[in-house]
């Protein structure tokens, strides 16, 4: 039971974190400045974005959930099971971010979903 709760917490925080990160980085616009001296200013501007701060916090939540999951769960279960994020992220990329998802990617997401179901047995 605890395993499933931790896995759900890890997957949920990764998915939400990636989604917020993608929204905020797109809103910021393409990063074209890679001069180390001016990169600091880009980073400073990014550090003030609320969604991005939240995304980093969610990454931390995800990592601590993973750490805790490893206390009891097998590594050979925990790591592939975390691939469930790919399924939810594909759906949310289509629904929330309005990205184009071609049939090959849908097929890939379905294979991952079946794989996670098999792990759960």
């Amino acid at each position, binding site marked *: 039971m605890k395993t499933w709760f931790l896995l759900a917490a890890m997957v949920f925080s990764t998915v939400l974190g990636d989604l917020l990160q993608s929204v905020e980085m797109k809103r910021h616009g393409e990063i074209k400045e890679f001069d180390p001296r001016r990169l600091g200013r880009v980073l400073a501007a990014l550090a003030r974005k609320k969604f991005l701060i939240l995304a980093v916090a969610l990454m931390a939540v995800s990592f601590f959930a993973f750490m805790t999951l490893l*206390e009891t769960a097998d590594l050979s279960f925990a790591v592939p099971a975390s691939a469930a994020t790919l399924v939810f992220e594909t759906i949310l990329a289509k629904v929330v971010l309005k990205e184009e998802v071609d049939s090959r990617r849908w097929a890939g997401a379905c294979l*991952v979903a079946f794989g996670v179901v098999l792990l759960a047995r």
Partner: protein
Amino acid sequence: MKASERLGPKTRVFTVVVVLSNALGNFALASGMRNRTTASALDYLAAIFSPWVSLGILLLILWLLARMALLSWADLSYVLPVTSLGYVANALIGRWFLNEQITPSRWAGTLLIVAGTVLVGMGTPRSDRL
């Protein structure tokens, strides 16, 4: 990016570093966390500063940086499929070094996830077409 550039020595080295740092980082983290009980923030601090867990965290930081660097010149459609081999490495490490039992359905699940990740990566638009 042309296919000939894709497998230059730099790309090969970074690919190996990405796969190995992820697999070894997970292994170190799992070794350090196994049979621990973290109930408070203090428990987490103690865990983080234990040798295995801190080694795991350092390797996972290396993984993140190496993957970011690799993605700065290599296509995601190369990086995603090739690094999904990490799932296989991970399963072998679990079996050989952590004495985990990998049932046939767990192997099948892991391989399906690798296949799915490869398919998703193949569907990724090439960056030069964006």
